[in-house]
């Protein structure tokens, strides 16, 4: 029995590690200051280096987070404070369903709604909003779980002392739930960094932009840059840059995921210490 379990479990461990190893093997040699800054590079949008793509990815992610985080927090608090248990279950189910929608469908909706109907064009803002919509269910579900973990006795004790809803949130719920909420936020940021299809439709171009002039300017991003460069399979130098971009992207995602894991450990340690 043990052998069968190991047989099925090993690929789950080996495949991702092998993929990561292969990306590093291919990408690390391609990474140098020249590739990053674009000095002496030309063709295939390499003249400005990967700096513009990194900036574009981070701008998209940060914008999406700034839009989604307060909305997610408000929705989670509203759900916990005002909705009956049955409605809370409906909201949670709906959020799980929204999480399952393929990102390209969101991208299509963003293309029709923001780019065409609202005339935003291919723009940073359209990409940020659509990424915000994509990460919203993750953030809300995480916030709801964080609030659910607060002992009911504490909420009842606070209400019994005459705290109103605002004081309950500020003085009991948020101090208890913020580490878990922040963990969810970091995971949501990592998710926003990893999405490609939605921003391909709504926000990014291949070249011509290093730093967007306004929210309504298009941007370049690491994700879509990899997509474009990978299509130049015959040009080994260009594909090498794509691998290098992939390493940078993975490093950024791992950074946020590691941050989330660290926060979870801090939270776990705090919970163990307090009882």
């Amino acid at each position, binding site marked *: 029995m043990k052998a069968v379990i190991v047989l099925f479990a090993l690929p789950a461990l080996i495949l991702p590690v092998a993929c990561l190893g292969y990306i590093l093997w291919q990408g690390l040699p391609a990474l140098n200051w020249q590739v990053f800054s674009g000095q002496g590079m030309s063709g295939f949008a390499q003249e400005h280096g990967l700096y513009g793509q990194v900036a574009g990815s981070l701008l998209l992610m940060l914008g999406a987070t700034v839009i989604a985080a307060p909305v997610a927090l408000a929705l989670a608090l509203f759900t916990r404070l005002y909705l009956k248990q049955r409605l809370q279950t409906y909201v949670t189910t709906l959020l799980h369903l929204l999480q399952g929608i393929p990102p390209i469908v969101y991208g299509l909706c963003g293309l029709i709604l923001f780019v065409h109907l609202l005339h935003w064009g291919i723009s940073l803002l359209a990409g940020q909003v659509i990424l915000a919509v994509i990460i919203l269910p993750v953030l809300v579900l995480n916030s709801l779980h964080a609030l659910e973990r607060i*002992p009911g*006795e*504490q909420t*009842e*004790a*606070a*209400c*019994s*002392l*005459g*705290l*109103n809803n605002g004081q309950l949130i500020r*003085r*009991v719920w948020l*101090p*208890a739930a913020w580490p878990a909420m922040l963990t969810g936020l970091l995971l949501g940021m990592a998710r926003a960094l990893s999405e490609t299809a939605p921003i391909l439709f709504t926000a990014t171009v291949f070249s011509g932009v290093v730093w967007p002039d306004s929210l309504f300017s298009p941007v370049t991003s690491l994700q879509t840059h990899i997509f474009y460069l990978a299509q130049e399979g015959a040009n080994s130098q260009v594909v090498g840059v794509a691998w290098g971009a992939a390493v940078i992207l993975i490093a950024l995602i791992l950074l946020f995921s590691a941050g989330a894991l660290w926060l979870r450990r801090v939270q776990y340690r705090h919970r163990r*210490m*307090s*009882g």
Partner: protein
Amino acid sequence: MNLNRSLPCTPMESGANKIVSAQPSLCLCNVSLQLDGHAILGEISLHMPQTGITALIGPSGAGKSTLLRCINRLHDGWQGSIELGGQSVRETDVDSLRRQIGLIAQKPAVFPCSIRDNVIFGLPNQQRKSVSDESIRQVLEQAALWREVETRLNDDADTLSVGQQQRLCLARALMLEPSFLLLDEPTSALDPRSRDMIEHSLQSIASQIPLLWVTHDLEQAKRISERVIFICDGRLIEQADASDFFSRPERMESREFLRWNVCDCD
């Protein structure tokens, strides 16, 4: 049969009610509650005097804790009338009502901050900043906790034992100077020593404000209370002076309850 239906809403008119009090501090009249279509409380009418301990007893699931939470409006879907000091609790701002009516729950809930901050947790912002150490000392003394925490008021409240945490919750409630205290089995999770300390504190507090004390422990009810309210299946069966209730219960349900729950409660 709902005996409570026949109970009028003023104590002096009630023949079944043995409590004689000039001015009831709390008066419930035909209080009913339904949750998800199920009747949890059925037309409960009762009166509480201005001081002393009233034990609220009954089997599990009788609606005792729910009744407490109707009084301070943690449950707000009830029908009927609840008056505190002659004023309907529905007409009082819910937050100030809850500051007037303290609730001590079965499981102590301290907040993740210092002992001192826990004591003043319920005070409004301005008062929290200006509260004197003397006031904190007074309520901790009332809760019989001062001697154990006087040198470590800035320690985390989590570091206290469960019994100490429960007394801290009592001090926290007393800090708001409530005019009424609801107690939902406050000693059921405590060791005998902590239980005795809480009982002793509450008995001295009861000389100033009325206490409505839910307990499963009939020995405790007999030991601490001056009056008893017995409810079963969400209905009020009997309310009487404690000595009368335990020696000569009027209702058959009360006699049955005492017979099956206490054998040595003579």
